[in-house]
């Protein structure tokens, strides 16, 4: 499968999941309610609307969004033979990203059902997973760019080929 097919498939997957959500009855208090004491704030719903199949579809949508990121990085990362190790590392990062997302959803499920006092590094557990696991893993994509720049992004051979192209163009312009 070519990278562009991966981009199209993942984009259609996200669109399809939104479509699936759209045909399901939407809980009225899904996006929170007015705060009972302060007009300038919103308040989370007391009815824990994110549970059961609703939470399942939201998890699937999050996975699809991460897969879109992976497919775009696959497209931009190139497919030349020397870049196979980059593609493998990108795939590994996507898998870790998906695992962190799943962990956060599992922690959130327990949290919204009443595990408010369970803390990790001083924060509610799902929030700690977001800040200390999910977010750092997503920084690994950029770390790959920095660490492997000479090997995967711009090799010496490519740099020289580009210089030759520019020189040829300047000659033609002159």
């Amino acid at each position, binding site marked *: 499968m070519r990278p562009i097919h991966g981009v199209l498939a993942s984009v259609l997957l996200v669109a399809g999941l939104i479509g699936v959500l*759209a045909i399901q009855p939407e809980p009225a208090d899904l996006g929170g309610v007015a705060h009972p004491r302060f007009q*300038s704030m919103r308040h989370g719903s007391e009815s824990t609307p994110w549970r059961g199949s609703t939470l399942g579809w939201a998890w699937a949508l999050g996975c699809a969004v991460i897969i879109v990121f992976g497919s775009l990085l696959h497209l931009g990362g190139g497919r030349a033979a020397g870049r196979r190790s980059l593609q493998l590392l990108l795939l590994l990062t996507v898998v870790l990203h998906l695992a962190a997302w799943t962990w956060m959803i599992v922690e959130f499920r327990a949290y919204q059902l009443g595990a408010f006092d369970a803390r990790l590094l001083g924060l509610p557990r799902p929030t700690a997973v977001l800040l200390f696991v999910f977010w750092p893993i997503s920084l690994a994509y950029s770390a790959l*760019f*920095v660490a492997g720049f000479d090997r995967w992004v711009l090799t010496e051979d490519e740099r020289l080929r580009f210089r030759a192209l520019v020189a040829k163009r300047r000659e033609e312009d002159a």
Partner: protein
Amino acid sequence: MEALRQPIILGSLGAYMLLCLGVGVWALRRTESTREFFMAGRNLGVIVTGVAMFSSTMSGFGFVGGPGLVYRIGLSSIWMLVTVGVSNAIADFCLGKRLRMFAELTDSLSLPDAVGARYGAESTRGLTALAILLGILGYLATQILAMATVLQSLLTGTEMFAGISLVTCVAVSSSVLVFYCVTGGILASVYTDLVQGTVMALAGALVFVTALTTFPGGGGAMIDSLVADDPASVSPWGTLGIVGCLSWYFLFAVGVSGQPHLLTKGMMIRRLRDYRFLPVVAIGGYLLTALLWISIGLVMRALVVSGAHPELTRADSAAPVFLETYAHPLLAGVVFAALFAAIMSTADSFLNIGAAALVHDIPKSLGRSLGNELSRARWATVGIALVAALFALYSHYENERLVALLGVFGWSTFAAALVPTVAVGFNWKRATPLAANVAIVTSLAVNFGIELFDIGLPWGVHGGMASLLLSLTLFITLSMASRPPRLAPEVAAVMDL
């Protein structure tokens, strides 16, 4: 020291504005051609480019709207911030090297120039320029209005300027902005961005420390207080819910690759290999600045729900109230200067790419060249700022919805219109100009329609996400259904690298 709070804040602002004017004068001597005015001679170092990129991303919204959102809906808006690793990676892998190569090979002066060269189609160049021009007007108007409103609120606290009008504040703040943009073009813009970004990152770090120590009992007690009031507020989704947050995550992560003011700055970097460390500077600065966004919002919400501070009249006043009440006067001075820096660093980028669209890209797409582009670019900068300032004032006094309406042509329109054409199209030889044109026009129509007719999407899905999904799908499927385009040999060669 407390008695000197107002003079310190105004003094910081005055010093900052003088610095901007000084950079404008300095850059004037170094800007003698359109290539220097629009592209800084493609001679920027990695630190200048990286700081300019993150400071343009974090507009006044990050300093006022961001903390206001956290105060109002809890941690939901953190999903705009946690995109930073993915968004930079997508932009860097898909575009960094390639766009810079196109810029050098074809001597591009703007993003639409590079798009025109890639697709070999003037219509695609013209539509890209048009989308940019439409997008920046609303964005710029909101920035000018925010700058003038903050200035007015600061000056009315003094005896001398107690009765100062909003129109005067618009004139003063816009004049400084226009002065350095007209004299020094993008060179003045990126070097003021360097100052602005440094001030913003410093302010972010200092405010974070102050905010954590402001709540009685520290950070742990603050979280306890927030959980006791509303557990959802400090959950990963805040009160907005999962799907709404996910649509922000998608839009902001993918959408960065369609923001013309950022992509244009990437085209100005001196050497291709400098790209390597660009994400380090851009992400590092952004993370420091983001600390202010989250910490002020959380601490103000905690102070209010615990009864330690009266309820705010508006969520957007969270940052100004925090600074006026809890921050040391010197810190408040730095942060107010940083707020102006955040607004100006975004606005100056828009003025420059808007001028390029008006005097270079649109005429070129129509087969015309205006001649003496440098002089015209300076006049265009003044003209665009004037139109945006008038929009801002008209909106403030007559029709509040106007700027909001044009504002949607900002981030999400750039994302939906330009991500397929640029981020995908520069990595896929099969992409056709027709598909790019359809994607741009459709995304403009869909974004505008969603806002104009106030269409709410189910489950809190953001309209920008829907239009980005649609434009990506149309772009890829139409290209696949069309005959493969014939690429110029040098375009094909660059795309092979």
